[in-house]
């Protein structure tokens, strides 16, 4: 089947990134979200594109072209027009299953489903849908438009045809799809949350300020962002969610650091609330010491 229209379920950072990436490669994209935050998804994508424009990464006409290819809706009936479905919602098994069941009824039978889930098993997600052989795991890593690798996982019933479709989709998005065994947390999320958690402990224990931990880790490993900024950009609620899911599977080595729980409880969620381990400006850049007080 010639794939031209992509449906993306979930308008969080991951869903928006996949939508932008797909649109920039010529796909028409419909972004679905039933949450309240979804409505400003297009505005947030546009803001991100404006930042790329300011850094010369795209042109004004490329920005218009990308935005012109993405639409947003809350009406799931629109799913019947999709040629490929990408599920990029928060990792809650029951919510995901319910959404996939609905999508299963609305999408044409030949449409392949791709789940970007980090901590759910594809075999578990596929259990209650008719097209269980058409569900593939393809975990995109934020910032989606910049990371050139994705983790591909097949479930117990996933067909070769669905895997090939997912690989071709990843390739068109400019990503190498690396296939790994089905395992919760995959490779990137599993290693990342451990690093984030350890850095969070250092801050919680008073070993160093968050910005100093960032400075040391960034400079020593040649990273553009340290683990705490990565956590802030992912959303501390998402990081906590991943850790809780992984703790259920792997036990106490994924027990979240208390500061993580505290920040989430306080609504201090990272970039989206302009404050997490670090503070952020209106255009989501890290607020430096010269620009303001990081600690509230």
């Amino acid at each position, binding site marked *: 089947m*010639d794939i031209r229209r992509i449906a993306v379920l979930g308008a969080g950072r991951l869903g928006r990134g996949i939508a932008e990436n797909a649109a920039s490669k010529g796909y028409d994209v419909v972004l679905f979200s039933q949450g309240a935050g979804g409505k400003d998804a297009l505005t947030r994508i546009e803001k991100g594109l404006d930042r790329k424009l300011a850094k010369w990464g*795209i042109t004004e006409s490329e920005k218009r072209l990308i935005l012109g290819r993405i639409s947003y809706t809350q009406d799931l009936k629109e799913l019947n027009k999709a040629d490929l479905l990408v599920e990029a919602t928060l990792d809650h098994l029951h919510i995901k299953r319910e959404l996939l069941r609905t999508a299963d009824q609305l999408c044409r039978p030949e449409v392949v489903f791709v789940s970007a889930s980090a901590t759910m098993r594809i075999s578990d997600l596929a259990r209650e849908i008719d097209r269980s052989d058409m569900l593939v795991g393809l975990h995109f890593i934020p910032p989606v438009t910049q990371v050139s690798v994705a983790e591909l996982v097949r479930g117990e019933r996933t067909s070769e045809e669905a895997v090939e479709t997912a690989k071709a989709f990843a390739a068109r998005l400019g990503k190498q799809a690396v296939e790994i065994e089905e395992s919760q947390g995959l490779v990137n999320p599993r290693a990342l949350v451990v690093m984030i958690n350890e850095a969070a402990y250092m801050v919680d224990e008073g070993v160093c300020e968050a910005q100093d931990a960032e400075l040391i880790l960034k400079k020593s490993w040649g990273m553009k962002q340290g683990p705490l900024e990565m956590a802030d950009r992912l959303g501390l609620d998402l990081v906590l969610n991943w850790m809780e899911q992984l703790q259920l599977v792997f036990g106490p080595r994924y027990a979240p650091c208390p500061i993580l729980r505290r920040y989430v409880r306080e609504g201090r969620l990272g970039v989206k609330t302009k404050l997490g381990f670090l503070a952020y400006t209106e255009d989501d850049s890290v607020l430096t010491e010269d620009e303001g007080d990081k600690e509230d």
Partner: protein
Amino acid sequence: MNIFVLNCGSSSVKYKLYAMENEQVLAEGRVERIGQENAIITHQSTGKEKISKTMPILEHTVAIQESLNLLTHAEHGVIKSVNEIDAIGHRVVHGGESFSDSVLINERTKEILDSLAELAPLHNPANVTGIRAAEKIMPKKPQVAVFDTAFHSTIPPHAHLYAIPYSVYQRYKVRRYGFHGTSHKYVSQRASEMMGRDIADLKIISCHLGNGASIAAIDGGKSVDTSMGFTPLEGLMMGTRSGDIDPGAIFYIMKKEGLSLHEIDSMLNKHSGLFGIAGVSDMRDIEKGIEEDDRLCKVAFDIYEYRIRKYIGSYVAAMNGVDAIVFTAGIGENTPAMRSKLVSNLPYLGISIDEDQNKKRGEDVEISTPDSKVKVFVIPTDEEVVIARDTAKIVS
């Protein structure tokens, strides 16, 4: 002999059908927005009404088939059947070091072309897609590839090698290739015809000034240097490309702005040149800005002219003289003020131009005065006819 010339881009196909006996264009057209539901085909057979239609065209095979349908159409076409086409000539952007001339396409050629995709990722894969599509529709017709780089294959090592570790050239073939070769070849040959002299006896500098721009030093009919290099980014200032820049400045900008490779690439290719200085990339807008006393439009115009002048000076030195300078492509053909300014800034070459001739458009014209020591021409380029000629020559 009828030759079908194809120029396939990633989402477009341009075509021309030639009767080679008198090099007459029988029909021409283009298909745009390939891959979309609303692709547009524009077609005109010589002496007939121009037609245009919108339809879904999802890939190049369909685009080429549609163009053949129009060529053989009872009302809009010029031939009765595809059998009247003798061969197909393809424009291919990059021939690397493998192809120093046009070549008959066979399995081996296609394999080499596939391997060259890395050198011209935006163009070569689309060119090869066109070759495979045409082959699918007309499997028995001979096909010829005509390369933009081939004309520059005569550039000697002292001009095509960069002064970087030689192992980089050995490993990755990083060197000057040059582009617009088919255009430089056409206009230099045409200039020698207009001068009534054998091209083997002439030193010609040709200036292909379009949205992309390059300049070539052609000694005795052979390219000996050109301004574009490993990629079309080097050389003259262009619509949105920077042309020459100190590589050290690139590292500094990347560090200060925290730019990725993609961002600096995009900055130099899409946000620089006329656009980078003046905010507009079209020379007509630059000229309009100058009329309105826009300072940056004037600066952009001056840089553009100065860079061409510098290259002309260096190519005069490279060839130890020049007999003719030729201007072609959008800006080269349609900007008399640029040509006037350039020539007035080169008094040591003994050039003088006739301003009335300089204002002519759309025809081959000598704009220098009879007593000018260096002849200056404006010659609208015709890359397709060179592709058709090479194709006819190879399949004959």
